């Protein structure tokens, strides 16, 4: 007997990812695609890609898609959802996109309880532009614009978006996860599913922040990057479910 163990999710286009080896963007793409497949909503889902390394997300997902201006994906998604409440809309954003230039848009979309889903990739760096400081960069961390390490006095502190957003009444689901172990991958997938269910059930805004690696701009090999994420990022950004109004499945 032959059993199918692995298959490309229908929600992925099959186009080869352009991400660096060891980059977590690809893992999260796959999880999002699996969730959309399992929910059976691919044909009714719109993807809003950001400006950042995942700018090509619209090519990787097999569904109608666009690219929002840097940071504005939640506004674009709001426009779509308000025009077509019968469709499902998700944004996929990096930490520069969501937590710096787009802070106002994510705060207000969440606070309005927009029925959209946001996948937030926190890799503590500006990946696409070559490793500059992100709002999520850790204290002391060296980047191309913090060559002496991030200094709280000068550069401020790492931004905790989940902790800010959990106060917003419009948020229906909010979690921070990682994808460094198979268990974490499973947990992240569950969280993504709930963030979509928050939208599908019309409860409100859903977001999953995934702590992710950027081996290229961290200047590490993929294994060291995973270790660094565990050792440095997790203590700064505690994992967990911050808001869950979705309840248990079924």
């Amino acid at each position, binding site marked *: 007997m032959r059993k199918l163990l692995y298959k490309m999710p229908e929600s992925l*286009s099959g186009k080869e990812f352009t991400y660096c080896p060891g980059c977590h963007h690809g893992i999260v793409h796959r999880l999002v695609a699996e969730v959309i497949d399992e929910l059976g909503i*691919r*044909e*009714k*889902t*719109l993807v*809003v890609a950001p400006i950042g390394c995942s*700018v090509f997300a*619209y*090519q990787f*997902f*097999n*569904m*109608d*898609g*666009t*690219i*929002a*201006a840097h940071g*504005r994906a939640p*506004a*674009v*998604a*709001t*426009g*779509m*959802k*308000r*025009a*077509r409440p019968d*469709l499902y809309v998700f944004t996929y954003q990096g930490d520069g996109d969501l937590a710096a230039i787009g802070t*106002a*848009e994510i*705060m*207000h979309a969440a606070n309005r309880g927009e029925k959209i889903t946001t996948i937030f990739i926190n890799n503590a760096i500006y990946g696409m532009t070559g490793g500059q400081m992100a709002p999520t960069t850790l204290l002391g961390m060296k980047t191309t614009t913090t060559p002496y390490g991030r200094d709280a006095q000068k550069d401020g502190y790492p931004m905790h978006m989940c902790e800010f957003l959990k106060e917003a009444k419009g948020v229906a689901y909010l979690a921070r996860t990682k994808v460094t172990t198979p268990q974490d991958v499973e947990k992240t997938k569950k969280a993504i599913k709930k963030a979509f269910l928050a939208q599908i059930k019309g409860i409100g805004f859903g977001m999953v922040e995934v702590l992710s690696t950027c081996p290229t701009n961290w200047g590490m090999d993929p294994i060291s990057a995973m270790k660094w994420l565990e050792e440095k990022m997790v203590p700064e950004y505690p994992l967990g479910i911050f808001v869950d109004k979705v309840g248990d499945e079924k």
Partner: protein
Amino acid sequence: MEKVMVKGTEAIGEAAIRAGCRHFFGYPITPQSELPEYMSKRLPEVGGVFLQTESEVATVNMLYGAACTGTRVMTSTSSPGFSLMMEGVSYMACAQLPAVFVNVVRGGPGLGDIQPAQGDYWQATKGGGHGDYKLIVLAPSTVQEAVDLTVLAFDLADKYRTPTLILADGLLGQMMEPVTFPEFRDLSTLPDHSSWAMTGAKDREPHIITSFDIDPYILEKMNLELVEKYKEIEKNEVRWEEFMTEDAEIVITAFGTVARIAKSVVEMARKDGIKVGLFRPITVWPYPYEPLKKLTEKVDLFFDVEMNMGQMLEDVKLAIGDKKPVAFYSRMGGVVPTPTEIYEALKKEIGRRV
């Protein structure tokens, strides 16, 4: 059809609804807040969506999103707000997304003031945002025309898949005039965007809408497609009005509300036996260069009047070249010139030339 007295801003709002617009996103700013206020009351009555946004930056991106789904969508703002929208407008022009913007221009630059002005002409017609793009720009001079051009703006935006701008000013926005509204558009007769809009990839390939390609040769192709489209628009959509130009020896050039003031100047001059006419562009992009150029055959002097430092003046001179002299009169900062002061300036100009 029945005439009703309405304010310019509200007339634009009602006209948009009649044109089939059911989505309005906007952020308050004087002197146009009556328009979002009107829409917030009116849109729910017709099953539409009004959303007060967190900023003009969010606004334009919400328009982008709504337009991606192929729905008719609009916003209105005033000068500083339109400046904030420029990045998104550029994205929409490149992504070929139809939407209607209203800029009720106020005094500038900077915070300026809240009085009527025309200082955003360059921003509207020469770019404003980054990259090679154009907006169709309509400049109404009466409330009735604001109604008619609002409907036209939606049709042109859809026809050419391009953002379209109504360039108004505080005077027109606040003015009450009797107008006739068009019938309500049957929504099922609106243009079909199913070939490109994001509506869910069911039984078809995904629809992708972007203003992006990493390959310069492909992006250049996208640029050329826009260039072709703009040529089409220049060929088909130039609109203007001429008032008493048949025998005119002097022609005033003016747009928007200044043009209606200039009409009074024409009448004052005619009473004194001076043969003055008015040339008024209705589309300030595409600009009516050819019809204006044609007037040089019989006109001795052109007199451009604006509420800015001479922005349309550049287009007037482009049309006229060195064929005939072009004089200029303006007020700025939100000061509206009176017919008498324009007439006095015109007479001085004539005196200088005899």
